[in-house]
Every structure is written in structure tokens, then in C-alpha cells.
């Protein structure tokens, strides 16, 4: 007969959430379940399946199950694998250089600028390099904005210039100097072969060469941009998918305030 079990059994430490040893979750705490897929450039065979399994073991999967293998072409095989990850991480120790500000509203931002800086802020934005994707930068800058949020052009206390796409870093810096910009916004969508990293690094170099990097709040954004990456590349902040104009504006007015008034 089955044993009776009481709620106390849930206290089993193996089955308790321990944030210092956070593990993936399939259907039970700490089961470590993960799904992996990849292609190997070898013909499908039992040996290829075994190879896929070994690679999964190297990734830290205990007992990996090759749930699916598929011939992609002579010489390529595709695998879908499930297994239990032996790795865990100390969640309490994770350091997100996240932009963790209370987001202000359009009105609050305008008031903040009026009160603190007593003038309009000058913002210049573009999708730089050979990148032709404008939808991201438009979402932040165009008055019609994005998902119901007005873009920066709609802010009374912001003078916004949206240069569009395919703007060379040189042109961009020239415009920044001409307009005496406070804030620069750079959008990057194409990231194949890390072309965005090259392009963003080049911009920082140019700004430094012109000796204007210090005086400017430099921000980048795009679907594959994270704040961590942005900081590594010498930007003040980076914003990814789902950014709203308010998020960016809150960041730069606070940052400006910090720089000027502290």
C-alpha cells in the first residue's frame, strides 16, 4: 500500500528552492531539466548520436537523452536533447548592471528637466553604420512612438534629432558637435559576425578622439544589446527589446542630474 505522506515531506532539502544553488526546473524543484539542440557536421549514425550525447555531457547534462536525431543532408545531423544540468548558480550573487530606476512619466520627465536643467536637452539619434533598420530608433524618437508611448520628439523639454539609418559614425559625430548634443542614441540591429561591436567601438573611439566623450551621455540600443555589453564597449547604458521612450529618458535625465548636481 502507498505510504501516507504529509506536507512536511516537502521540506526535503533536495526539493527545496535554494537561491544560492539555483537550478533549472522541469516539473520538480532542482530537477535541473534543460533542452538543447544543435547540428553536427557528420553523417547521421549511432556514432553521431553518441557524439551528440557526449557533447551534452560536456555541457554538464547528466543522463542526456537524445530525443530526436534527424538527417539534414549527407554530412549533417540535427539533435534534440533533454537532460539534467549538474551546474547551478548562486542567484544571490548575481550582479546585474541593470538600469533599475523607477520609470518616470512623460510629464514627470519634462518637469524634472525644467527644474533641474532649466533648458531643453539636446538628443541626437541614429541607426549607424550600414544598418538600415530604423524601426527601433523610430520607436524611441518619433512622435508617434511605439505601443502607445510618445517618442522623444513629443517631449516639450527635449530637442530631438532623428538622423535615420545608415548614418556613418563620422557624420553622426559631426552632427553631435554641430548641435552641441547632450545625449546620443545609437541603434544597432544587425549583429552578424559582431558587426555592431566593431561599429559601436569605432564610435567611442571617434568621440574620444574629438575629446567630447566625457561631456555626452552615450546610449545604445537594439534587440540584441544588453546594458552589460554596452558598458563593456564604453557606453553609459544599453537597452534591449521592449524598451520604451520613458525608460531611456528616465535614465538620461537622472544620469545628467547625477553628473551635474553631485
Amino acid at each position, binding site marked *: 500500500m502507498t505510504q501516507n505522506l504529509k506536507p512536511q515531506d516537502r521540506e526535503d532539502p533536495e526539493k527545496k528552492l535554494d537561491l544560492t544553488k539555483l537550478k533549472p526546473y522541469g*516539473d520538480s*524543484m532542482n530537477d535541473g531539466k534543460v533542452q538543447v539542440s544543435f547540428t553536427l557536421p557528420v553523417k547521421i549514425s549511432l556514432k553521431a548520436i553518441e557524439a551528440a550525447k557526449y557533447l551534452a555531457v560536456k555541457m554538464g547534462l547528466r543522463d542526456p537523452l537524445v530525443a530526436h536525431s534527424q538527417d539534414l543532408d549527407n554530412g549533417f545531423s540535427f539533435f534534440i536533447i533533454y537532460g539534467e544540468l549538474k551546474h547551478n548558480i548562486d542567484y544571490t550573487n548575481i550582479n546585474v548592471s541593470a538600469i533599475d530606476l523607477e520609470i518616470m512619466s512623460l510629464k514627470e520627465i519634462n518637469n524634472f528637466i525644467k527644474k533641474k536643467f532649466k533648458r531643453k536637452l539636446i538628443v541626437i539619434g541614429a541607426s549607424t553604420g550600414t544598418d538600415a533598420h530604423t524601426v527601433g530608433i523610430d520607436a524611441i524618437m518619433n512622435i508617434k512612438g511605439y505601443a502607445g508611448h510618445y517618442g522623444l520628439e513629443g517631449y516639450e523639454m527635449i530637442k530631438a534629432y532623428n538622423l535615420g539609418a545608415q548614418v556613418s559614425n563620422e557624420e553622426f559625430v559631426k552632427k553631435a558637435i554641430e548641435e552641441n548634443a547632450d545625449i546620443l542614441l545609437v541603434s544597432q540591429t544587425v549583429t552578424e559576425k559582431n558587426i555592431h561591436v566593431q561599429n559601436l567601438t569605432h564610435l567611442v573611439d571617434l568621440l574620444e578622439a574629438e575629446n567630447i566623450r566625457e561631456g555626452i551621455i552615450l546610449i545604445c540600443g537594439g534587440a540584441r544589446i544588453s546594458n552589460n555589453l554596452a558598458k563593456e564597449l564604453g557606453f553609459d547604458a544599453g537597452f534591449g527589446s521592449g524598451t520604451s521612450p520613458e525608460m531611456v529618458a528616465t535614465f538620461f535625465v537622472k544620469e545628467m542630474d547625477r553628473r551635474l548636481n553631485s
Partner: protein
Amino acid sequence: MIEKKKGDINQRSKLDLDQKKIESARKLANKIALKTQNVIEQYTTTSIERSVCRLLGIDGVDNYNVPLPNLVVDQVQRANKLEKGVALFIGNAMLSEQDSPQRIAGSISRGEIDITSLNFNDIDSIKRILINKSKERLNLIEKKSSQRQELLKKYGEKSGPYIYVIVATGNIYEDITQAKAAARQGADIIAVIRSTAQSLLDYVPYGATTEGFGGTFATQENFRLMRNALDEVSEELGRYIRLTNYCSGLCMPEIATMGALERLDVMLNDALYGILFRDINMKRTLIDQYFSRMINAYAGVIINTGEDNYLTTADAYENAHTVLASQFINEQFAFLTGLKEEQMGLGHAYEMDPSIENGFLYELAQAQMSREIFPKAPLKYMPPTKFKTGNIFKAHIQDALFNMITIITDQKIHLLGMLTEAIHTPFLSDRALSIENAKYIFRNLKNLGDEISFKKNGIIQKRAKEVLDKAYKLLEEVYSLGLFDTIERGIFAGISRNINGGKGIEGVIKKDVSYYNPFIDLMQKKLFRGDK
């Protein structure tokens, strides 16, 4: 048998089905059911008697974890007196001992009393005390049922398909976590899958359980815990979340009883499943099914029948008509117990080999046909399972097609497919992805069903006609053979079973003329005459 009136078919037939043939098929099915019913009513089973105990209020286990209902029934069976029904002995003991069924059962478990050897009181007094107790207990069930009605009134009924997902961690507390998450993600019905092979246990486990394989034990306490959790999340979401479990296997009527007492909303209830896939004796489980359906009917529970299962062993293209024939028979069996059409979640499944050209059209024909033939039944539609492989990406598409059929043909109880069907019981994320899949399709194709009609005599209409014709022929065959013979010949699911073989036959007992079960009478009066 209830005949369908023309007006019942609120949707104009898109398939141009022969309405006369449908009517005749229904009549045949009714005759098949009646023929079987004659046999069924001559018998009781150990599990029916155990559920009489439970209905009378006997619950709990002894020191060896043996459930008290088993101990009580064992005592009567050992005395070779089960043919009279356990109720009379309990009623007699209640009179003699001036005690409650539960406390009498406690005495039995401690070896303090043998209820079969007590002097017999006057039969009318025995029946009177039993009827009083039974009414009191049935009231509890009615209360649960009204409570459901109130909650449904409070939150409102959902239009469109119910999204039905399973939880199966083996641990009721983990199941609760998963169930609540699923409800928040959009699920309307949560089914707690049973641990493998519980259907073969000839007793119901007791208490909250945290160890099961491929599912969690069905126990009354687990039912209660989960129903509470779902009530909480219903309140949070302002949406009534239904709870389902399996009322099949050797304890079918007991589980029906537990479910009635704990306000389960849907019960998988099908004798054929046990016969074909669990090798349970056919008489045992058909007899059990009769009593359990009556309990479900009484408790306002929707039953789900298991025709979908046939297609996991038989080919869906070749054997589609066996599903329809079985739906007709199941409908009649259900009517005989007092179940209303609105409680009949007749089963079918999307199980066509994905490599078949125009497979989607055949599935569409089948689903639309079920809808038109059983217009009021909340059909239970099962997802692709058999042809799922470890290719989770393809599996997700298979489920998308299935979701489409449901929204196009207006199925009601929609059991979501999982992209990992061929791999494991669902992860939290699998369920979330499947719910997202269904919600996306349901929203995006919302009115497609109203918008399209099918070509006269096209592939779809022809297919539906062909399936109906074949089902009709099969019903004729079943009628002439009888249901028991039909099963012996392996006509359903390609699996044949012997009338005297299989598990649980030792629990089938021919009723004596003196046999007495207070609940049958009371429930039937309410169900058929609307008595209060």
C-alpha cells in the same frame, strides 16, 4: 432513449449528413445498450459495494493502510453474503449498535465486530435507517454540485473551447504548483494524471501522496487539496477552473464517489479503456461503469469517454468509424444512468498519420461530424500523441493543426497536446508553450468556422458520409453479436479480450433477490423523475 429533434442541431449541417441514418444508428445503439444493461443489472461488484460504504460515510485506513471500505466489504464477501449488498449489513449494524457506519467500520478494522453474524433486525427498519443516512449523504453531494453552479454563476461560463491540461509530477504539492501556473497561463481544466497502473489496484490509496510514476495517486485527500488550490486560483482569476481525474479501472465507482464528494468537475469514465488497455474483465468494469455514471450524473460531473484511446493502437484512417460507433453506444449507456447530454464529453482524437495526404481534411470531417451528430455534448477532443516523435518543433505544429480543428468545428473540451509528448510528462514550460499555441490559434482563427462551408460531395463531405455508413454497419454487427462478443472479436482498438478473462472478475457477484443498494433508487428517482 432520447431522440434528437431537428431543432437541436443549432448549426446548419455542413456535411450534409443523412439525418435518418443518424437516427437509426442511435436506435441501434440504444438496443445494444439495453441488451447489455440487462446483464449489468443482475450483478454487483466489490467496488460498487465499497462505494456504497463510502457513500454511507466510511473512509480512512487501518494500521496497514488498508482502506476501511475494503475491510467492510471483505468481511461480507468472506461470509459469502455480498450478493445481498453490503448496505443491509451496515444498516443492520447501525440499528443494532446504534452507531455510525464509520465507527462500525472502525470496529471491523479492529476485529471487534462481524457485521454478517449479527441478528437481523426488521428489514423495513433497516431500509429506513439506510435511506435516511443515504439522503443525508446525497445532500452533501448536491451541496457540492450547487456550489459549482454558484461559482459558475459568479464567474460566468467561458465561451469557446475549454483549455484542458494535465499535471503529472507524482507529487500532489508539486502538481498544485503546476496547476496554478497553468490556470494563470490560461488553462480552464486541470487533469491530475494518475500514477501508472493505479487502475489495477483493487483499493483506493489514502491521504496526500508525493510519490507516483508518470502521475499522482488519485486519493480523496489529493482531490480535496487540488480542488482547494483551484478554488483559490479561480478566485484570483475570476474564472472557474475545473478539476478532472480518472474514474476508470478496478475502483471506478469509488473514485466517482470521492469525486462527487470533493467537487471534481470532469471524470474520465470508460469501461472500454480498462477492458482494452488494462485487461480488466469486461463484465466487472461495465457493471462498475453503470453505478459510477449514475454517481457522476447525480453530482453534475461531466464524463469523458475514451474512444480516443482506440486510435493509439488502431489506425485512425481505417478505424474512424469504430470511434463513432462507440460514441453512439456510450451516449446510450450514459442516458440509461440519467446523464444529460450536457454532461457527455464523448471522446475522439486527432491521430491521423501526419504523412497522409489531406489528413487534415479527414480530421476536419471527423470532428465536424461528431459535432453535428452530438450537438449538445461537450465533446472531448484528444490531441495527436501516437505520431509525435522527439522532434518537438514538428510536434508543436501537429498540435497547432489540432487546435485549428477544434476552433473550426467548435469542440468543447480541448485536451492540449504537448510538444514533448514523445519524451516526458509535461514540464511547466511545455504546458505554457502549448497554452500559448492554443490561445494564439483560437484567437487568430476565431470565426473561421462560421465563415467557411464545404464543397458538396467533396473530400470532406464524402469522408464523413463514409465514416457514418461504416459506423452504422458496425452497430448492426455489434447488435447482432452483442457487446461482449464484439469485444471478444477485437473489433475495438484491434484488441480482443475474453469475457471471463482479465483482472477483477473475482469481484463480480450475481445479485440475490434480496440485494439492496439504497443509492440506486434514490439517485434514479432524482435523475429520472426530478425528485428532490
